[in-house]
């Protein structure tokens, strides 16, 4: 079994996912990441998922595709996916592809957590 490419932690009811790799480019790794996050989503009745992009320098369109799939699956379970700490160059990729309109993206981790908390109250 391959090693996990993610670091998963909890912030209250929020599941935070961080990437071990700085470059999310390899198709096989991206599929493994997608499978691992999908398993997390399936374990929760109403997933509150925070993907923290700190330390990510590069990602490919396949990684964007995996995020879309994760977003779709989270929505299917009436959950929420938020992205945070995205490097400006990578954020531009989201803007160019208009995926900044699809995803809930926050500049900082604290901002994302505050939004989760506000929605819960």
């Amino acid at each position, binding site marked *: 079994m391959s090693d996990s490419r993610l670091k998963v932690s909890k912030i209250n009811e929020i599941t935070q996912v961080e990437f071990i790799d700085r470059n999310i480019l*390899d198709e096989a790794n991206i599929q493994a990441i997608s499978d691992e996050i999908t398993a997390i989503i399936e374990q929760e009745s109403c997933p509150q998922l925070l993907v923290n992009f700190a330390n990510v320098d*590069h990602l490919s*369109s396949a990684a964007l595709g995996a995020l879309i799939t994760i977003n779709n699956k989270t929505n299917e379970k009436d959950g929420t996916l938020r992205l945070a700490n995205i490097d400006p160059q990578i954020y531009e990729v989201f803007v160019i*592809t*208009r995926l900044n309109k699809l995803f809930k993206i926050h500049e900082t981790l604290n901002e994302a957590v505050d939004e989760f908390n506000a929605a819960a109250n």
Partner: protein
Amino acid sequence: MGDSITCIPDAETVELFNDRRAISELIDQILSLAFDAGLKDAAIFAVRLAIEEAITNAFVHGHSQLGNDVPVTVEYKVSKGDIQIAIEDQGPGFTPEALPDPTLVENLSKPFGRGVMLMKAYMTEVLFNARGNRVKMRYLAS
């Protein structure tokens, strides 16, 4: 190699197999030359993204009906402020003009179809040969 549209005269030519380490090493090599030729940060990011997308497309789509041991050909030429790269696969090709626009609302939730769009967004020039199995990309620093 290549037709007149996608030809890169005096290019370095490499046979590249679908191996992550080999792909990363080649891209790092090209970007190292690009850095030495004066490209910095944002330009390096752009060229890396475009090359990754083009190579992925060649193997995943171009070679979808071929064995995983079939290589693609990568040609590159780096000079001051000018990076030219061509990737040619051995597949049947495709029609780039027929690709749907991934930025349309109805396509945003689809997890595929953004590679060529990103190549065009980040490179100064992206040209395909008539068959659609070879792409030439060029980055010109402003």
